[in-house]
């Protein structure tokens, strides 16, 4: 069965470690993969696609060496494979103009400003992944344990079957 990945793109290893630790509760159901730059992220996305898996959530820093986070997200939005991926910008340094660009062209779903609390990050990830599985997946029961139960139940009620 295809897996739904979370990918984190961030150039600072310490920050990356914190993100992974914060999201560890989700990892059992949604495997987490990391990339340190936009280029690494492109390779990662290609690998996930070639294995027949999907990307449910992309958490992305903005200021990185090489291509910026917003550029990567716009690219992902334009690619059919990652179009439905929920996109979260995780940054302290994106200016107004770049943020507007991200919202307009990358259909950015969330913006988390540094510093964040673990609870905030987990809530955003759970919310976004819940939206993703409701839109993309048929069998919602397997996500009941880690995602937003109330919303998943509501989705089942609306469909009338599982």
């Amino acid at each position: 069965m295809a897996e739904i990945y979370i990918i984190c793109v961030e150039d600072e290893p310490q920050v990356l470690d914190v993100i992974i630790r914060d999201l560890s509760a989700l990892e059992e159901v949604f495997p987490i993969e990391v990339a340190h730059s936009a280029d690494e992220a492109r390779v990662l996305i290609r690998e996930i696609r070639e294995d027949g898996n999907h990307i449910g959530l992309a958490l992305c820093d903005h200021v990185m060496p090489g291509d910026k986070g917003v550029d990567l997200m716009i690219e992902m939005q334009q690619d059919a494979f990652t179009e439905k991926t929920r996109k979260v910008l995780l940054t302290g340094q994106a200016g107004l103009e770049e943020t507007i660009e991200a919202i307009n062209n990358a259909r950015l779903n969330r913006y988390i400003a540094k510093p964040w609390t673990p609870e905030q990050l987990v809530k955003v990830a759970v919310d976004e992944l819940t939206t993703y599985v409701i839109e993309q997946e048929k069998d919602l029961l397997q996500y009941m344990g880690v995602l937003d139960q109330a919303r998943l139940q509501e989705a089942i009620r609306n469909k009338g079957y599982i």
Partner: protein
Amino acid sequence: MQFKKSTLTQHLSKKITGFVLGLTGFCLPLVFTFSGLSFAGHLALGIFLMAAVFWMFETIPIYSTSMLVIFLQVLLLSQQGLMFSGASLPVTQPLQTGENQWLIPPEALDENTVYIAEGEKKSRSLEVKVLEVSDMARVESSQLSSDTQIVSEARHRLVRYEPLGYADFFGTLASPIIILFLGGFILARASVKYNLDKNLTNVLLKPFGQKPMLIVLGLMMVTAVLSAFMSNTATTAMMMTVAIPIALQVSKEDKFRIVLALCIPIAANIGGMATPIGTPPNAIVIANLQQQGIHIAFGSWVALMLPLAVGLLLLAWFTMRILYPPTAKRFTMSLKSSFEKGPRAVILYVVFGLTVLLWFTEAQHGVPSSMVAFLPIMALTVTSVLKQDDIRALPWEVLWLVAGGISLGLSMENTGLAMWLVSSINWEMLPQLMLLLVFGVVALMLSNFLSNTVTATLIVPLAISMGTSGIGGEGFNLVITSLVVGSACNMAMLLPISTPPNAIAMSTGYIKTIDMVKVGIVIGLVGIVCALVLSMLYWPIIL
């Protein structure tokens, strides 16, 4: 990852096993000839075996098995299909040799029965006294005359089988019971769309207060009432959104969470029994009885089943109370209801109320419930309460599943297959009550592993033919036996896979399989006993 791969291979090998077994089942009656079973009965047996295997192994989705069944019936068993379109009965006339004594070809004789042709494709059987069989058979009968058209081949495919037109098989999808269900689906869809189910829940839950076990009783009653009209699955999902906030008020280890997550699927399963539209197995029962010319009104069904449903609800409640006594004293629930007041919502309320009223008063006005069911279908679409998207979102595959079941039942009766299957066992030693018990227990066990609808599809025709063939003996009541089978199908809630509501409850993570098994065993066993008691003491009064 390793784990996932092995389950994948298991899954695949289960599919392949199912496929091979299903095809074998289909071919079996084509290779072997079973005595006492007509040619068409052999074909029907092949279809029956293949469908049973595919349904059990879920080789293909269960609704597509139904479509396959209808396809094969149209192809093989219909008047216009491959086997019967060009066929006509070969006939000959008997030769008189003395008073009431006749010479006929030996092939025309089936033990001591000959078949009289009454048209190209229609024959009736006639018992004769066989005097001698050599080149020709000499028989004695007062019913023959020299211009009687007797069928010269007793083994001909048209003997003992009058093929139905293909439209009869297709027609099952528009049979009255399917329309009744469609009406139910339409009402349910509109209720969800305008949040009628949620608001009703909040209103109905209020009187139950804040004490834990009273809340549970309230949740169960409301779930049962809603699931009597809506799908058990949608009801469970909706009620879970009510139960989860309560569960979050106690610690993770508190056993009360188990009760909260368990009470809802149980009540949804039980509630489905209460009305004809509550759950698809009811449709199978009603449709099979309809084929025998027995009509069960909406209100009578409720009168028959309600005591059982209420009894089982209370039983489940007491069982959980004993197994998992609550520790907390009281809970807070936010029960705000805000009924929508737009014109379309109001139309829905009126149509819903009127439909239910008409369903329950069939005895007074005499309009069958299926005709009443077309009122919401018409009214809610004419007024745009439901739009194209809503119509598309209806669970059509459930209707196909039921239609396939009804269609298979048609052929099982019509080809004599069902009668042949039940007559192969010697039932005469069993008293009436034991017969019911056997049918109930078999249905209960199968239904724990298979879809309830599929179980009903496989078993109800057998129960019916016990009655129509007289094998069941004197006093065998078609309706009562079918009701026992139908309710047994709905009482199966032992495992997470038994019903979709159970799967939903399991996914919350609040309960373990063993919790479900404990309560499920009590309901299943006591439930069967209750059904038998009702079948002896109460149902005969209503019928």
